[in-house]
């Protein structure tokens, strides 16, 4: 599955996406974020205040406790500044 990063998070990581295969105990989007942070110091530091981020699953914003099974694309979204 694909993980997308946007805006200053993308810049901090020097990449816009990762292709990942999380282990079976990664069941929710929150688990996925925790697993990704454990693999990557830059992401871990950039997400030191996780509450500011929203997550999307297959292009819909969903709660962090949403199940991951079957997801093709998850995005980690810094606070949005549109309009």
């Amino acid at each position: 599955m694909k993980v997308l990063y946007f805006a200053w998070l993308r810049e901090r990581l020097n990449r816009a996406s990762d292709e990942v295969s999380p282990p079976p105990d990664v069941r929710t989007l929150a688990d996925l974020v925790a697993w990704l942070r454990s693999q990557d110091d830059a992401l871990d530091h950039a997400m030191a205040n996780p509450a500011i981020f929203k997550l999307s699953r297959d292009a819909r914003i969903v709660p962090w406790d949403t199940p991951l099974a079957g997801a093709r694309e998850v995005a980690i979204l810094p606070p949005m500044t549109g309009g």
Partner: protein
Amino acid sequence: MIRVTADPFDPGAEANAFQASHVEAGAMVTFTGIVRSRPDDPITALILECYPALAENELAAIRNTAMVRFGLIDAGIIHRHGRLVPGETIMMVMTLAPHRQAAFDGAAFLMDYLKTGAPFWKQEETAAGLRWVEAKQEDDAARDRWQ
């Protein structure tokens, strides 16, 4: 109508076409967001990053909520991404309703929700380089007043 686009658009032409699309409407409100450059802190451009698939879904969801909540006849959102210079139109919200209050409230609701709930990120281009625009607490407060 939801449109997420890198292309410039003409807000006047959009408003006229939108107004002409529903003869049963007695009130229309339009809001246009414009790239601004403050004299004391000028920018040369505003760069909008976007996640288009998510933006279309979330804007459609916000629009549907507003349509039902305010009894709108129609609502439209156009939002650009890419590099825009001061004076250019960033985005536009339009509402059509039988009477003015629903049109005003619907447009304000759409703006307050899309500021914090649609996946766009602004970066300012200045003589000193690029800087990300920080999310504002008052935008969260403006959204929360509708709850």
